[in-house]
């Protein structure tokens, strides 16, 4: 009797256990399903938005082509600018970081830059130049092919119930050439890109990839590894160093260089990392990793030392334009002065530890990359340009400066430091036509 009771109890318990487990499992499954569907829907929505915006973009670009003056074109140009930003945002919601989806993104960036520069920023009402009109035509054509490609993929997704979650998984897999219609379709969109991309570089809107920090021809002769490390140690004025690694950079680097790590004090000192150009042995940057003690010096003492460091290393006519200090370090930005013009794009940065007044980092990649070879004679006078500023502004300082705008063009500008109440502004106005290039609100 007793035994029977136990068997029955065991039986009931087992059944209960199985039932609870399956309910729990089902719940888990449902929850997971809900999350997956949620993510999938988000991807689907982004893609549909992308195609919709590119579709509308194609239309507005086409409409703009029908207009004669900038003024009459402006509504379409502004609309294209808005649509390109929305499409760009939608495209970046898709799990496509690990695949070549460059063409669409690049195209959208071009449309954005072009429409902003011709339609939003320019205030005058002259006709579009022949070149600008040609660019607009090219963008219109491009928008058609991209739209067709995106639409084709969209149709396939709808017809075959394809899931973006699978795309995401497929992209993470080792073998990418497995059959995934979405990936194939998007690759096809990207495939026709080469001639389009080339037709836009270099003076057209940002081909950042190619343009960013393309170093100018550096003076000096080719160095091997030993020469480079000897030069670096000499340049840093270190003794008893131990070199830990030295590698030549790969072909992806913007400049052929050697990356070095070393320690001073027979390998017991702090770690130095640096990059030295293979040609000429220019120290592109270096960085020391060390703990920083309590602050012992003021900013002024630190900046004197930084300026001296520059002088000793062959930088002349440099002006300190920016000081940042945080966590017991100071970062100084120096810009070269040529014919009393500040060359902002060619800046040099120095970081100082405020415990022992020691320079612990240096960077001249901008200095090496930017020639700033624009004519340094302004066409307009400062007084003429100044009329663009609101009369409420009190101008405190006026300089001539070379400024690099978002399309990476160097432009000769008048730089005005002006105040209104407690706010300080920095305004760059084009020295040739008075256009506004940049307005900054300098926060304390």
């Amino acid at each position, binding site marked *: 009797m007793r035994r029977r009771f136990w068997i029955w109890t065991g039986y009931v318990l087992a059944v209960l256990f199985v039932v609870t487990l399956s309910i729990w499992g089902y719940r888990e499954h449902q929850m997971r399903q809900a999350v997956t569907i949620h993510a999938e829907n988000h*991807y689907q929505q982004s893609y549909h938005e992308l195609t919709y915006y590119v579709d509308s973009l194609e239309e507005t670009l086409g409409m703009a082509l029908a207009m004669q003056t900038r003024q009459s074109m402006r509504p379409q140009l502004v609309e294209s600018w808005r649509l390109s930003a929305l499409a760009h945002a939608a495209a*970046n*919601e898709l*799990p496509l*970081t*690990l*695949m*070549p*989806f460059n063409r669409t*993104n*690049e195209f959208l*960036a071009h449309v954005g830059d072009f429409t902003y520069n011709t339609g939003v920023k320019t205030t005058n009402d002259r006709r579009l130049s022949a070149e600008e009109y040609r660019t607009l035509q090219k963008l219109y054509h491009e928008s058609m092919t991209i739209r067709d490609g995106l639409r084709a993929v969209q149709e396939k997704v709808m017809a075959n119930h394809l899931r973006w979650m699978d795309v*995401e998984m497929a*992209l*993470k*897999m*080792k073998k*990418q050439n497995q059959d995934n219609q979405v990936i194939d379709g998007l690759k096809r969109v990207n495939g026709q890109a080469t001639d389009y991309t080339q037709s836009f570089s270099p003076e057209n809107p*940002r*081909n*950042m*990839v190619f343009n*960013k920090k393309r170093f100018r021809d550096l003076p000096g002769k080719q160095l091997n590894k030993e020469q480079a490390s000897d030069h670096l140690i000499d340049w840093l004025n270190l003794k008893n160093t131990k070199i830990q690694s030295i*590698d030549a*950079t*790969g*072909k*992806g*680097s913007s*400049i052929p*260089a050697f*990356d070095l*790590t070393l320690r001073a004090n027979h390998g017991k000192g702090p*770690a130095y*990392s640096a990059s030295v150009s293979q040609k000429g042995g220019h120290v*592109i*940057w270096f*960085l020391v990793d060390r703990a920083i003690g309590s*602050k012992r*010096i*003021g*900013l*002024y*003492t630190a900046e004197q030392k930084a300026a001296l460091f520059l002088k000793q290393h062959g930088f002349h006519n440099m002006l300190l334009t920016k*000081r*940042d*200090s*945080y*966590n017991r370090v100071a*970062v100084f930005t120096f810009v070269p002065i040529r014919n009393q013009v500040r060359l902002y794009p060619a800046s040099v*940065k120095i*970081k100082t530890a405020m415990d022992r007044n020691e320079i612990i980092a240096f*960077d001249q*990649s901008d200095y090496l990359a930017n020639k700033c070879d624009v004519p340094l004679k302004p066409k307009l006078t400062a007084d003429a340009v100044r009329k663009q500023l609101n009369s409420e502004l009190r101008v405190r300082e006026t300089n001539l400066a070379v400024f690099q705008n978002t399309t990476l063009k160097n432009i000769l500008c008048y730089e005005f430091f002006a*105040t209104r109440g*407690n706010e*300080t502004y920095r305004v760059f106005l084009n020295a040739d036509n008075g256009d506004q290039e940049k307005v900054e609100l*300098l*926060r*304390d």
Partner: protein
Amino acid sequence: MKKQWRWAILLVFVLTCLQSMQASAFSNQIITQGETGDDVIELQARLQYIGFYKGAIDGKFGYSTYWALRSFQKNYGMKVDGIAGDSVKQKLVKASRFDKDYIDRNLKAGNTFTYYGGVPLNQQVQKASQQSKGSTAGKPDNATKSGTNTKAPNQTNKGKYTIDNLPQGYSRADVNLMANAVYGESRGEPYIGQVAVGAVIINRVSDSRFPNNISDVIFQPGAFTAVSDGQIWLTPNENAKKAVMDAINGWDPTNGALYYFNPDTATSAWIWSRPQIGKIGKHIFCK
């Protein structure tokens, strides 16, 4: 009679000492733009006392302090350079007064206050508690009005001005988010490798094929494994924050990389096809 003389000499001596002590309340460092600390508080207070400085007395030598100092130099016939050296400080000490107690007390209490000469001090303070009452009563612009000083308590005077002093164009939230990403992605890496991961984020922001702000770059689907597996929500350490500051200040150990991967764990075939730049720690960086 002789004794009296002695006492008089001593008295004069003590008085001059006191006076010179007061005059040298500034430390002997030269104060420039970007400086923070007690000297700047005194500089701002003294400039405000004689009406040149209308901003908040907060110990940060920013642009409004700079213009105020230049106006002072111009008015007093000195070289106009916006740098407070010895002669400037002496002139300033002669021309103004500095009630250290009053200012320290109000800074500590987080009060909104000003320090204009000729106005009774008790009319220039708005207590922190009153201030919040005032704003609930429907006068929110009272506290933000220019020329007043809103300040979290105990933030000054400790010499601990942390990441607040940021490079132009970056917010504190950006730095924190980046520190989270850098820590989640590369906490086992050498310092330079952490700077490199930060630099990749910055490079992506400025590249047209990627989103154009920091949070969108970090949260782009599939872009960073630390985001996918939730490690981004670990609490970052000081080193990661330091690395992020170096990266946003422009140091790029990768010479322009847009991608990186761990060769031991990377599964994507495509990433291997990118032109490589170099290896830092365990990561290979590429374009």
